Each structure stands twice: as structure tokens, then as C-alpha cells.
């Protein structure tokens, strides 16, 4: 179950099926992202695709054509796309068309298209199921920045998620049993819709599978903590502090960055250093980047002394690799440099330590004290300060000595914006204790205390990575066959038949890179299981708070009436 390989295989099929010749690839906004997640431009050029076009760009229809090109069309089967394609076929710009849809398409739409193909330019019409973004081999996203309105499914987002997951299942040849988080209507709705389509398209879903895989649908609201925390593994950290968007990181705000580095691509497929360090923690990356630098300098030095013809020959032969390496080194040095600058500037280590303690220990008075101390620290960013208060609010929502009011006053004194203050209320409405079914903070039970002792003795426990996302427990239960049927019931008339080996987790409301790391280590520790993680999007704290804001907009305050010093006007 490797989503990157699955998408790559489809793209390869698409480029190879269409006979040799110069090609243009015509896409829409979303399919462009799908492809760009797995193929770089120079890579796709090696497949004879020399031009990339967007059918939904405003000046596409007036642009000139090149009749000697073959056109690969890769579109989502939406109404707009069908219409645009009809216009295109009536006045074809290219010599031949190979049409691929990223998902199941209605027969009626094929008919409409066929009726517009008066010039007989269409050679092929196919469905290739890749209607999702493949982020890492075990991680995918639908690419929906928000999916809820008034704490209900946004209908468009529901439809899009159903399509995304259906295409995912098809691309991996899985016909799973579906379980969902019992207290969430959203999970049930999504599961039911997927189940309906699977039975409607039963001929497509007829795979000879040895054991039945499992699709487990979860709701972000069961674990609102994970997306709020500062992260210390490379990928997660870059996303939290610099934001990764379709494998691209915008560095244009970094001071003194050269023009070619204003946007860098971080793709584990093309960048071995990144691939190796994606799950390494901050300290290890420091060491590794130093190694990379040393390696590079050694190479650079050997290139400096070119004395004989043989040296010259060596240089010419090694130069392309050298240049590649040099680009890579600059990229990572810039990124890591920026990360470390931010860590120092905003005292992120101090912030993170408190975050971790709140999320995984139980000591109200000392936590309150540490938060207050940080709130008085001028260097801590307002967002980090507000997030600390949010964590506190979630953690001690029902604690008898809850002093949220006092903390909010402190935030106000710091001049934290009203919007950030309102996020505190929003997140409680979104995922307060009323919305959760799991015991998110049951952190200090007997088993765990002993575990902590053992860990503490061996001295491996890192204070910045104490927190384990709720998903960790869920997976542990699942792997051991202990996931309760009442809490995670099956859809339809499926029943529990042993422990599934292939598990697909989907989180409505977005997954995080911390959870991706959890899944990655599970796959490593339990080689007989194969776990894939997906979400409506991949969140960092900023994007998560935006989603929460959108989801709770116009929702009357039910659970936060006691917080009187934050008002919505």
C-alpha cells in the first residue's frame, strides 16, 4: 500500500499508452496538484510531456494550438471540466486526445463528449483512479482546507472526500470493511456514502484479496491536541513553522534569501537527504546537515585543485552530481537555518516543553504556573501564547480550579488579537469534552506510569517528544484486536473477522505530520501490518485554527457560556 507508487504507476501508464511523440498534458487545478506531488517537471519531460496546460486558466481557450502535438487530458470528472472539454473538442488545438478522468465518470458525460468529437481526435477515454494527493508513501490528503460548516459536513467537501477515498481504494485495489468513530455523525455519513458507492460499483471493487482490509474513519475533534503542538521532526517542523503546500515551501519571507530559493520543493521522491531525514528530530537533523555540509566541502575542495588533465576529466565527470548536491545543500541549509532562527527567536523550546507537559502529564498548579510564566515572556509569539491557553482550556476544561479567565486576562494584557482570543472559545465548541469519545487525557494510568519509569531510567525519553497522539492508542488497540465495537462500529453488515492486515485511517478535519510519524513507526515496528493515513488535509496549528474557526462560525455558544471575558460581536 504505497500511494506514491500507485499514482506514479498511473501517470506512467498514461504517458506510455499514448504512443511516442511530443505531448502536452492538459489538467485542471486539482489534477495539477495530484501530478506535481509525485513528478517534477524535468522528470515528466523525460516522458515526452513538454508542455503543461490548465484547462481552467482564463486564457486557455484563446490560446493557439499545435496540431502536431498529442494531448494527454487528465481531469476530474466535474461538470465544468466536461463542458470545457466539449468546447476544446469542437475546435481541437492538438492533433490527438487521450482523455483520462481521475475518478468514476457518468456514462451520460461520455456521451456528451463523444457527440462533440466531430473531428475524431479522441483516441482514448479512460478512468484512472488518482483523485487524491499522495504526500508520502503512507500518507495522503484530499486537499480540503476546511470541511465543516456549523459543525456539519459541508456537502461539497463530503462529496469530494467520498470521491477521494473511493479513488484511493481503487488505486490500491482494496475493498475494505468500514468502521467509524461512533459519536461522530460526520464519520458515519462518510462511511455510509463510501459503502453505497462500493456496492453500486461492485464490479470495479471485485479484487481477489486474501484478507479484508479495514477503513477506519475518525473525527479530528476526538484529538484536538495534536495539531496544536509545536513539532520537532523535520517534515512536521517545516510544516508547522514554514508551511508545506503540495511539497512546496515558501521561503520568500526569509530575510536575505536568494531568488531561486524563494520557493523550494521538498519531495522525498527526488531528494534523498530529505527522504532520510523526514522523521528525524531537530537534534539529529543538525548533525546530519553538518555531515552533508562536510561532505559537500570535501567535494568542493577536491574540485579546487585541478592540476592535471586527469583532474580535469574527473571534475567534468563529477560536475553534474556536484551541482545537484550543491543545490540540495543550499536548500536544506537555508531551511534548517530558518527553523533554528525561529526556534531561538520565539523561545520555542521553552514553549514546547510546557506544551508537552500539559498534553501528557497531570499537574494543574504547576502547569498553570509555567503557562503564566511564558505569557509574561515578551519573546513568545502571541500565537504560541494563545495556543498554550487553548491547550490549558482543553486539558482542564472541567477542573475545579480552572483559571482560564485569569489566563485570558493575561493574554489581553499582552495585546493578543481578538481573533486569537476567540479561537479559544472556538476550539472548545469544536472539540471540548462534549465532542470527544476517547479519554484524551487519561495519561497517568498505572501502566503508563511504570512505562515512564522504565523509560526514565534508560534516559531515552525526550521532553519535547513525550506526547503521543490519540491515534497511537487507537492503532495499538486495533493491532491487538482490542478496538471496541461500540466505540468504532462497522458500517453495513460487515462484522469483525480477525485482525485486518491492511489498515487505512482517514481523519475528517485533517491529519497531521505527527500522526504520520506515528503511522510510520507502527509500520516499522509491526511489519505484518500495513497502515496508511489520510485526512481531508494535512494540518499545522495555523491551518487547524482556521478550520476550527470556519467550522464553528455562526454556531451559538453552548459549552463556553462560562467564559465571560471573550465576546463575539
Amino acid at each position, binding site marked *: 500500500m504505497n500511494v506514491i507508487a500507485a499514482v506514479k504507476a498511473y501517470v506512467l501508464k498514461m504517458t506510455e499508452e499514448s504512443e511516442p511523440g511530443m505531448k502536452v498534458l492538459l489538467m485542471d487545478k486539482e489534477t495539477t496538484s495530484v501530478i506535481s506531488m509525485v513528478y517534477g517537471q524535468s522528470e515528466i519531460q523525460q516522458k515526452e510531456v513538454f508542455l503543461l496546460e490548465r484547462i481552467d486558466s482564463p486564457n486557455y481557450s484563446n490560446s493557439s*494550438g499545435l496540431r502536431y502535438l498529442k494531448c494527454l487530458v487528465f481531469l476530474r470528472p466535474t461538470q465544468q471540466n466536461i463542458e470545457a472539454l466539449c468546447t476544446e473538442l469542437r475546435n481541437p488545438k492538438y492533433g490527438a486526445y487521450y482523455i483520462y478522468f481521475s475518478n468514476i465518470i457518468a456514462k451520460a458525460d461520455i456521451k456528451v463528449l463523444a457527440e462533440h468529437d466531430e473531428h475524431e481526435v479522441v483516441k482514448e477515454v*479512460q478512468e484512472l483512479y488518482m483523485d487524491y494527493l499522495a504526500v508520502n508513501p503512507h500518507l495522503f490528503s484530499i486537499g480540503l482546507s476546511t470541511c465543516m460548516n456549523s459543525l456539519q459536513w459541508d456537502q461539497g467537501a463530503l462529496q469530494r472526500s467520498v470521491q477521494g477515498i473511493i479513488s484511493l481504494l481503487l488505486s490500491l485495489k482494496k475493498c475494505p470493511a468500514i468502521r467509524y468513530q461512533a459519536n461522530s455523525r460526520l464519520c458515519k455519513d462518510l462511511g455510509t456514502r463510501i459503502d453505497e458507492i462500493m456496492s453500486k460499483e461492485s464490479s470495479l471493487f471485485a479484487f481477489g484479496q486474501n484478507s479484508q482490509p479495514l477503513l477506519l474513519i475518525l473525527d479530528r475533534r476526538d484529538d484536538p491536541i495534536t495539531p496544536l503542538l509545536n513539532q520537532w521532526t523535520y517534515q512536521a517542523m517545516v510544516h508547522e513553522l514554514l508551511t508545506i503546500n503540495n511539497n512546496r515551501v515558501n521561503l520568500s519571507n526569509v530575510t536575505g534569501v536568494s531568488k531561486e530559493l524563494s520557493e523550494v520543493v521538498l519531495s522525498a521522491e527526488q531528494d534523498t537527504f530529505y527522504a532520510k531525514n523526514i522523521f528525524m528530530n531537530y537534534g539529529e537533523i543538525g548533525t546530519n546537515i553538518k555531515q552533508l555540509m562536510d561532505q559537500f566541502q570535501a567535494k568542493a575542495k577536491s574540485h579546487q585543485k585541478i592540476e592535471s588533465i586527469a583532474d580535469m576529466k574527473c571534475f567534468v565527470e563529477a560536475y553534474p552530481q556536484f551541482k545537484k548536491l550543491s543545490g540540495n545543500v543550499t536548500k536544506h541549509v537555508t531551511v534548517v537555518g530558518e527553523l533554528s532562527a525561529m526556534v531561538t527567536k520565539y523561545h520555542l523550546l521553552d514553549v514546547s516543553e510546557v506544551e508537552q507537559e500539559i498534553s501528557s502529564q497531570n499537574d494543574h498548579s504547576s502547569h498553570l504556573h509555567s503557562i503564566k510564566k511564558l505569557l509574561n515572556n515578551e519573546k513568545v509569539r502571541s500565537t504560541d501564547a494563545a495556543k498554550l491557553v487553548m491547550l490549558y482550556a482543553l486539558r482542564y476544561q472541567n477542573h475545579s480550579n480552572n483559571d482560564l479567565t485569569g489566563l485570558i486576562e493575561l493574554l489581553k494584557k499582552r495585546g493578543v488579537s481578538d481573533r486569537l482570543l476567540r479561537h479559544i472559545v472556538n476550539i472548545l465548541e469544536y472539540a471540548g469534552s462534549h465532542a470527544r469519545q476517547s479519554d484524551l487525557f487519561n495519561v497517568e494510568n498505572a501502566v503508563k506510569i511504570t512505562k515512564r519509569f522504565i523509560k526514565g531510567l534508560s534516559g531515552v525519553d525526550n521532553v519535547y517528544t513525550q506526547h503521543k497522539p490519540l491515534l497511537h492508542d487507537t492503532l495499538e488497540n486495533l493491532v491487538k484486536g482490542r478496538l471496541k465495537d461500540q466505540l468504532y462500529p462497522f458500517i453495513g453488515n460487515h462484522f469483525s473477522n480477525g485482525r485486518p492486515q491492511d489498515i487505512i485511517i482517514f481523519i475528517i478535519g485533517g491529519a497531521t505530520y505527527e500522526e504520520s510519524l506515528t503511522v510510520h513507526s507502527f509500520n516499522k515496528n509491526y511489519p505484518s501490518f500495513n497502515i496508511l493515513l489520510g485526512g481531508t488535509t494535512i494540518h499545522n496549528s495555523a491551518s487547524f485554527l482556521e478550520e476550527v474557526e470556519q467550522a464553528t462560525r455562526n454556531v451559538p455558544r453552548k459549552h463556553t457560556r462560562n467564559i465571560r471575558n471573550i465576546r463575539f460581536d
Partner: protein
Amino acid sequence: MAEANTIQEGFLCPMCHKDLRSPNNLIVHFQDLHSEEQDILKSIKDIYDKYYLEYSDPQEPGPTRSHTDYFRAVRRERLDHRTTETNKLIIRLDRLLRFYGSDRKQQEQELVTWVEGYLVSRCPACTLPFNIARRQHHCRLCGSIMCNSCSYFLPYEIAQTIVAPVNNGSDREPATGKEGDNLRICNHCWNMLDCRRRVQIEQMKQPIICQLYSHLQKNKFHIQNTVDMYEKMYNSLVSGETTYLLQDLQSLRTTIADKAQMIDTLSKKIALLPVDPGMPKAAALQNNIRKATSVYIKDYLLTLSAPPTVQELEKIKRNRSIGVVEDDIPTPKPSIKKVTVTTGWSPANVTNETTVVEENDPLLEQMNIVRNYIDQARKAQRFEEVASLQENLQLLKKMYREQQKEEYGKK
């Protein structure tokens, strides 16, 4: 013993028969627990590398569903109608071109019935009413009525090319009508004819970029084959095998360099083709072809590992032979493979004069022939064949030696 009878499958450790489920796990497991068995580890790695190249990287694509047949069926239904209509028009046009003389109008009306004038009060194209100023006209091809400004006048010369696009009216009487004469036809008929004409023109012309590009691709394809061969020979050489010769590897490398030069020049030519300023896409296309080619040369051709020097090769060979002695594993004798000529190449008829006629010994004769083959194969850079021919030669030599020994024994 029961275990010995069950057949296990999967990524099994050759030492402890544990299923590790993935090649990576297997290698890690082996490195951790059986680090002393370096040979086996290497062979596992090799197998994995091959597996990785062949199966894992281009993972088999998921299912697809084709709608092409349905699409074609719907399209055919519609286009059949259109094609017959167009063909009808062309037959009529052909006959119209043969008409001449005073009764042309009558002949025209016999060919297709003209719509009665009183039935049509407005021009169907522009919906304006007919009157003395705006008179009715008939389309000569379908007989329908339109006004003068909505008529299209098809020049005879063009009509000729539509009827017979190839032999441009050479064997038919060139001027059936007067020079510069036109046929009045309606917009609808013109569209149908024009559409067909454009398709024919497209089919005939092939822009220069296409020719250059197909040339480029052909060369690239050849290079790829050579590169594959190069890598195979290189790997064989550096692992100490004697299947291929160093000099062959070097000459192959020169060939690759020459070819790389060639595609470089070709792609430059494409990039420099003149572009119509109104076609920014064509310029982008040409530049991208150039870019892709230089990336290809940089990433795939210049990164080829340089052939080892003679000294290095000696060292490798020595290390290998030491390793073999230490392990004391008798290497299985390679079975003689037949020379399989895959792509229709075969040594040109060996002229028998070159072989020494006095040699009565059929073995010696055979050996000479094989030597000859090897030379030719090398010239054609068929190193696969060189290798298997070499093997044959070795065997022949061995047989010859044994034969000699036997003869001495007899004497």
C-alpha cells in the same frame, strides 16, 4: 522433517528461514544477525536491487476502466451521418464541375431539386425577408435558398482540389467553366467541405520539428540500449568477472559520448527553429525539448561510472580469486549458452579463404571460425554475443587440449 516438506514463500532468511515480509527487513535482519555471511548478504542485496528495479519501482498500476469503445460507438453514429452527407456533396460537386454549355442551369437542377421559391420568405441564414432588393439564390450543392450576402462562392480551382486533392486536376479538362468562375453554395455545405479539406491538408503536412524530433527520439532509443549494455558490462567487470573485456567497455563509452553529442546538436537545432511570434507555445515546446535533452544527457549519460583502470581491474580480480579460495566453494561451471542472435544480426558469411585450409583438425577450424565471429561481433558492438562466443571458444580450446593429450598418450 515435516518442516522440510512444507514449501515456504516470502522474504525468507536463508539462515533461519524466518519470513521477514519485505526485502528491506530481510537485509537489515541479515546485517544484524548473520553479518559473517557477507557473500549471501551481497547476493540478497543483488536480488533485491533487481527486484527493486524491475518490480517495485514501477508498481503495477491499479485498475482502470476504459470508455473508449462506448465513446467510439456514440461518435460513429453521429459521424456516419456526417460522412455520408459530405460524400454526397462531393459526388455532386464532381458532376457540377463537368457541366458546361447553355443548359447548365437545367443540368444543375436535375442534379439536385431546388427548393421552390414561394416556400421560403426569409433567408434562413440571416432571417431577413426576401424582396426585390434581396433576391433568392439557390445553393448548387443542396438546392436550399439563401440571400446573396449569405452565399459562399466556391472558386472552381478550389473545387477541383476538393474533388481530387492528389492529382490536381491534371488529367481532367482544366477549364470546364470559365477561368475564375465560382459555384454558389450555402454556408452549411461550405462548412462540411472545408472541414474535410482541412483534415486532408493536416494529414499531408508534417512540420520540420516533427522530423527532427523523431530523429532525436530514435537516437535516444539507441543510446538507451547502449547504456543498458554498458551498465551490464561495467557491473560484470567490477565484480571481477571475465565475461567482457575492458577495451570493449571503453569503446562502448566512446560510442555513448558520440551519440550524446549527436542528440545534443539535434535538440539545439530544435530549440533554434524559427517560431511564429504569435505562437508562444511553440517556443516553449522547443525550449523544453532542449532542456529535457540536456537533463537527460546530464543525469543519465554523464553520470555513468567511468571504466576502471587496468590496475583497478587487476586488484578486483585478485581480491575475487582470494575470496574464492578462502571460501573454498566450487563455483559451478557455467553451462554453455547457445549464441542467441536477438535482433536479426549474424556474422556475415565468413569467407572460408581466411581460415587456413591446411588445418585438417575440425576443432582448430571451428576455433578459427569462432574467432572470426568474435571480431565481427565486436565491430558491431554486440557484446552479448562476444561474451557467449568467448565462452564457446574456451570450451573448444579445452576440448582441443584434451584431444592433444589423448593423442600423445596413444603415441
